[in-house]
Protein backbone atom coordinates (compact mmCIF):
# COMPACT_ATOMS: atom_id res chain seq x y z
CA UNK A 1 0.00 0.00 0.00
CA UNK A 2 1.26 3.45 -0.87
CA UNK A 3 1.87 5.91 1.94
CA UNK A 4 1.05 9.38 0.71
CA UNK A 5 2.00 12.70 2.23
CA UNK A 6 -0.95 15.10 2.15
CA UNK A 7 0.50 18.61 1.85
CA UNK A 8 -2.60 20.12 3.51
CA UNK A 9 -2.77 17.77 6.51
CA UNK A 10 1.05 17.59 6.61
CA UNK A 11 0.74 13.90 7.45
CA UNK A 12 1.79 10.73 5.66
CA UNK A 13 -1.27 8.50 5.42
CA UNK A 14 -2.35 5.23 3.81
CA UNK A 15 -3.44 5.13 0.19
CA UNK A 16 -6.96 4.02 1.19
CA UNK A 17 -7.82 7.59 2.17
CA UNK A 18 -6.80 8.94 -1.24
CA UNK A 19 -8.20 8.92 -4.75
CA UNK A 20 -5.97 9.11 -7.81
CA UNK A 21 -7.06 11.81 -10.23
CA UNK A 22 -4.89 11.44 -13.32
CA UNK A 23 -2.03 13.40 -14.82
CA UNK A 24 -1.37 16.85 -13.37
CA UNK A 25 -0.74 20.22 -15.05
CA UNK A 26 -3.15 19.63 -17.95
CA UNK A 27 -4.68 23.06 -18.32
CA UNK A 28 -8.21 23.50 -19.56
CA UNK A 29 -8.39 25.36 -22.87
CA UNK A 30 -8.90 29.08 -22.44
CA UNK A 31 -10.79 29.40 -25.72
CA UNK A 32 -12.46 26.03 -26.46
CA UNK A 33 -14.16 27.12 -29.67
CA UNK A 34 -10.81 28.02 -31.19
CA UNK A 35 -9.36 24.54 -30.64
CA UNK A 36 -8.61 22.23 -33.55
CA UNK A 37 -9.48 18.52 -33.49
CA UNK A 38 -5.81 17.74 -32.86
CA UNK A 39 -5.73 20.08 -29.86
CA UNK A 40 -8.91 18.54 -28.44
CA UNK A 41 -7.42 15.07 -28.87
CA UNK A 42 -4.26 16.10 -27.05
CA UNK A 43 -6.19 17.76 -24.24
CA UNK A 44 -8.76 15.00 -23.73
CA UNK A 45 -6.95 11.78 -24.53
CA UNK A 46 -3.18 11.99 -24.95
CA UNK A 47 -1.26 11.36 -21.75
CA UNK A 48 2.49 11.33 -21.14
CA UNK A 49 2.35 7.95 -19.30
CA UNK A 50 6.07 8.04 -18.49
CA UNK A 51 8.12 5.18 -17.14
CA UNK A 52 9.75 7.20 -14.38
CA UNK A 53 8.75 10.41 -12.56
CA UNK A 54 5.10 11.23 -13.20
CA UNK A 55 3.30 14.45 -12.28
CA UNK A 56 -0.12 13.44 -11.07
CA UNK A 57 -3.12 14.63 -9.10
CA UNK A 58 -4.42 12.99 -5.96
CA UNK A 59 -7.32 13.85 -3.71
CA UNK A 60 -7.33 13.24 0.03
CA UNK A 61 -10.96 12.28 -0.38
CA UNK A 62 -11.46 10.53 2.97
CA UNK A 63 -9.54 13.19 4.89
CA UNK A 64 -9.30 16.90 4.22
CA UNK A 65 -10.94 16.35 0.79
CA UNK A 66 -8.36 18.55 -0.99
CA UNK A 67 -6.85 17.93 -4.41
CA UNK A 68 -3.08 18.17 -4.52
CA UNK A 69 -0.23 17.24 -6.86
CA UNK A 70 2.50 14.65 -6.55
CA UNK A 71 5.62 13.47 -8.34
CA UNK A 72 5.84 9.69 -8.23
CA UNK A 73 8.26 7.31 -9.89
CA UNK A 74 6.07 4.87 -11.83
CA UNK A 75 8.72 2.15 -11.70
CA UNK A 76 9.30 2.08 -7.94
CA UNK A 77 5.97 3.76 -7.00
CA UNK A 78 8.05 5.98 -4.66
CA UNK A 79 6.73 9.52 -4.13
CA UNK A 80 9.43 12.10 -4.85
CA UNK A 81 7.27 14.89 -3.43
CA UNK A 82 3.73 16.16 -3.02
CA UNK A 83 2.70 19.79 -3.26
CA UNK A 84 -0.40 21.91 -3.05
CA UNK A 85 -2.67 22.50 -6.01
CA UNK A 86 -1.80 25.73 -7.77
CA UNK A 87 1.90 25.58 -6.91
CA UNK A 88 4.24 25.52 -9.91
CA UNK A 89 5.45 22.29 -11.39
CA UNK A 90 8.67 21.38 -9.55
CA UNK A 91 11.97 21.12 -11.36
CA UNK A 92 12.59 17.43 -11.95
CA UNK A 93 16.38 17.66 -12.16
CA UNK A 94 16.55 19.16 -8.66
CA UNK A 95 14.19 16.50 -7.31
CA UNK A 96 16.21 13.65 -8.71
CA UNK A 97 19.43 15.10 -7.37
CA UNK A 98 17.85 15.19 -3.91
Amino acid at each position, binding site marked *: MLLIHCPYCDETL*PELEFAYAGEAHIARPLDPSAMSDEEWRDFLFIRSNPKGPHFERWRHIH*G*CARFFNAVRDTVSDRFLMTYKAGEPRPDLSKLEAA
Partner: protein
Amino acid sequence: MPPGLCGSRNWPRWRGSRSGARRERGDAGPGARARAAWRGRSDARAGDRTALCLGPDEWLIHAPEAERDAIVEAGAAAYASAPHALVEISDREISYAVSGPAARELLTIACPRDLDRLATGRAMRTVFDTAQVVLWRDGEDAFRLDVWRSFAPHVRALLETGRAEIAAGF
Protein backbone atom coordinates in the same frame (compact mmCIF):
# COMPACT_ATOMS: atom_id res chain seq x y z
CA MET B 1 -5.53 -11.74 22.40
CA PRO B 2 -5.23 -8.73 24.66
CA PRO B 3 -4.85 -9.79 28.30
CA GLY B 4 -7.78 -7.61 29.30
CA LEU B 5 -10.07 -9.89 27.35
CA CYS B 6 -9.27 -13.14 29.16
CA GLY B 7 -12.37 -14.63 30.66
CA SER B 8 -13.95 -11.28 31.23
CA ARG B 9 -16.93 -9.64 29.66
CA ASN B 10 -14.98 -6.60 28.64
CA TRP B 11 -15.68 -6.99 24.94
CA PRO B 12 -15.94 -3.76 23.03
CA ARG B 13 -19.48 -2.48 23.02
CA TRP B 14 -21.20 -0.61 20.31
CA ARG B 15 -24.55 0.93 20.16
CA GLY B 16 -26.22 2.51 17.21
CA SER B 17 -28.21 5.64 17.63
CA ARG B 18 -29.52 8.41 15.51
CA SER B 19 -27.50 11.18 16.97
CA GLY B 20 -29.66 13.41 19.11
CA ALA B 21 -27.25 16.22 18.51
CA ARG B 22 -27.60 18.52 15.56
CA ARG B 23 -24.67 18.55 13.21
CA GLU B 24 -23.84 21.15 10.70
CA ARG B 25 -21.08 21.29 8.18
CA GLY B 26 -19.67 24.62 7.21
CA ASP B 27 -17.81 25.18 3.96
CA ALA B 28 -16.03 28.50 4.02
CA GLY B 29 -14.72 29.90 0.79
CA PRO B 30 -11.02 29.43 0.19
CA GLY B 31 -8.98 32.00 1.99
CA ALA B 32 -5.67 32.49 3.71
CA ARG B 33 -7.39 32.63 7.08
CA ALA B 34 -9.05 29.26 6.59
CA ARG B 35 -5.82 27.60 5.55
CA ALA B 36 -3.87 29.16 8.39
CA ALA B 37 -6.50 27.81 10.75
CA TRP B 38 -6.10 24.30 9.32
CA ARG B 39 -2.38 24.32 10.05
CA GLY B 40 -3.23 24.79 13.68
CA ARG B 41 -6.10 22.28 13.56
CA SER B 42 -8.62 24.79 14.74
CA ASP B 43 -10.96 22.46 16.55
CA ALA B 44 -13.01 24.41 19.02
CA ARG B 45 -15.42 23.87 21.86
CA ALA B 46 -17.92 26.29 23.31
CA GLY B 47 -20.43 24.97 25.81
CA ASP B 48 -22.10 21.96 24.22
CA ARG B 49 -20.94 22.94 20.76
CA THR B 50 -17.96 21.27 19.14
CA ALA B 51 -16.45 22.41 15.85
CA LEU B 52 -14.20 19.87 14.19
CA CYS B 53 -11.89 21.10 11.48
CA LEU B 54 -12.10 18.47 8.72
CA GLY B 55 -9.94 20.23 6.16
CA PRO B 56 -8.42 23.61 5.33
CA ASP B 57 -11.85 25.10 4.69
CA GLU B 58 -14.35 22.66 6.13
CA TRP B 59 -15.74 22.29 9.64
CA LEU B 60 -18.17 19.92 11.28
CA ILE B 61 -20.26 21.38 14.11
CA HIS B 62 -21.88 19.19 16.75
CA ALA B 63 -24.45 20.91 18.91
CA PRO B 64 -27.62 20.15 20.87
CA GLU B 65 -30.73 20.14 18.74
CA ALA B 66 -32.14 23.18 20.52
CA GLU B 67 -29.25 25.34 19.28
CA ARG B 68 -30.02 24.72 15.63
CA ASP B 69 -31.66 28.07 14.93
CA ALA B 70 -29.01 29.97 16.85
CA ILE B 71 -26.25 28.42 14.77
CA VAL B 72 -28.03 29.12 11.50
CA GLU B 73 -28.58 32.73 12.56
CA ALA B 74 -24.96 33.12 13.64
CA GLY B 75 -23.86 31.77 10.28
CA ALA B 76 -26.12 34.19 8.44
CA ALA B 77 -24.83 37.10 10.51
CA ALA B 78 -21.22 36.20 9.76
CA TYR B 79 -21.86 35.64 6.05
CA ALA B 80 -21.00 39.14 4.89
CA SER B 81 -17.54 39.07 6.41
CA ALA B 82 -16.91 35.32 5.98
CA PRO B 83 -18.74 33.89 2.95
CA HIS B 84 -19.51 30.23 3.51
CA ALA B 85 -22.03 27.45 2.94
CA LEU B 86 -23.74 26.00 6.00
CA VAL B 87 -25.55 22.70 5.51
CA GLU B 88 -27.41 20.71 8.09
CA ILE B 89 -26.50 17.03 7.87
CA SER B 90 -28.12 15.69 11.06
CA ASP B 91 -30.43 13.39 9.17
CA ARG B 92 -27.65 11.96 7.04
CA GLU B 93 -25.63 10.18 9.70
CA ILE B 94 -25.73 7.59 12.42
CA SER B 95 -23.14 7.35 15.18
CA TYR B 96 -21.76 4.15 16.64
CA ALA B 97 -19.96 4.21 19.98
CA VAL B 98 -17.21 1.62 20.33
CA SER B 99 -15.73 1.13 23.77
CA GLY B 100 -13.88 -1.43 25.86
CA PRO B 101 -10.28 -2.64 26.18
CA ALA B 102 -10.26 -4.09 22.66
CA ALA B 103 -12.01 -1.13 21.05
CA ARG B 104 -8.87 0.11 19.34
CA GLU B 105 -8.10 -3.35 18.02
CA LEU B 106 -11.65 -3.73 16.75
CA LEU B 107 -11.41 -0.52 14.75
CA THR B 108 -8.16 -1.61 13.11
CA ILE B 109 -10.02 -4.34 11.19
CA ALA B 110 -11.19 -1.73 8.71
CA CYS B 111 -9.60 1.62 9.58
CA PRO B 112 -6.16 2.22 8.01
CA ARG B 113 -5.16 5.13 10.28
CA ASP B 114 -2.73 4.79 13.17
CA LEU B 115 -5.20 5.18 16.03
CA ASP B 116 -2.41 5.74 18.56
CA ARG B 117 -1.87 9.10 16.94
CA LEU B 118 -5.46 10.16 17.55
CA ALA B 119 -5.45 11.95 20.91
CA THR B 120 -8.36 11.73 23.28
CA GLY B 121 -10.82 14.50 22.57
CA ARG B 122 -9.80 14.75 18.93
CA ALA B 123 -11.45 13.44 15.77
CA MET B 124 -10.66 13.00 12.10
CA ARG B 125 -12.31 12.10 8.87
CA THR B 126 -11.09 8.77 7.54
CA VAL B 127 -12.42 5.59 6.02
CA PHE B 128 -13.81 2.37 7.52
CA ASP B 129 -13.58 -0.39 4.93
CA THR B 130 -15.12 1.50 2.01
CA ALA B 131 -17.33 3.84 4.02
CA GLN B 132 -16.27 7.37 4.86
CA VAL B 133 -16.49 8.05 8.58
CA VAL B 134 -15.66 10.72 11.11
CA LEU B 135 -13.85 8.96 13.92
CA TRP B 136 -13.89 10.55 17.39
CA ARG B 137 -11.76 9.47 20.30
CA ASP B 138 -13.70 10.08 23.49
CA GLY B 139 -11.27 8.30 25.80
CA GLU B 140 -8.43 5.82 25.95
CA ASP B 141 -10.80 2.95 25.11
CA ALA B 142 -13.77 4.87 23.75
CA PHE B 143 -14.41 5.84 20.16
CA ARG B 144 -17.32 7.09 18.10
CA LEU B 145 -17.96 6.59 14.39
CA ASP B 146 -20.22 8.93 12.41
CA VAL B 147 -21.37 7.05 9.32
CA TRP B 148 -23.70 7.91 6.47
CA ARG B 149 -26.95 6.06 7.09
CA SER B 150 -26.82 4.14 3.83
CA PHE B 151 -23.42 2.70 4.79
CA ALA B 152 -24.39 2.04 8.40
CA PRO B 153 -25.58 -1.58 7.98
CA HIS B 154 -22.27 -2.47 6.34
CA VAL B 155 -20.19 -0.80 9.05
CA ARG B 156 -22.33 -2.36 11.74
CA ALA B 157 -21.98 -5.83 10.19
CA LEU B 158 -18.20 -5.44 10.08
CA LEU B 159 -18.11 -4.33 13.72
CA GLU B 160 -20.30 -7.30 14.67
CA THR B 161 -18.00 -9.71 12.84
CA GLY B 162 -14.91 -8.17 14.39
CA ARG B 163 -16.41 -8.27 17.84
CA ALA B 164 -17.29 -11.93 17.45
CA GLU B 165 -13.76 -12.70 16.28
CA ILE B 166 -12.15 -10.87 19.18
CA ALA B 167 -14.57 -12.54 21.58
CA ALA B 168 -13.62 -15.93 20.12
CA GLY B 169 -9.95 -15.13 20.68
CA PHE B 170 -8.85 -14.91 17.03
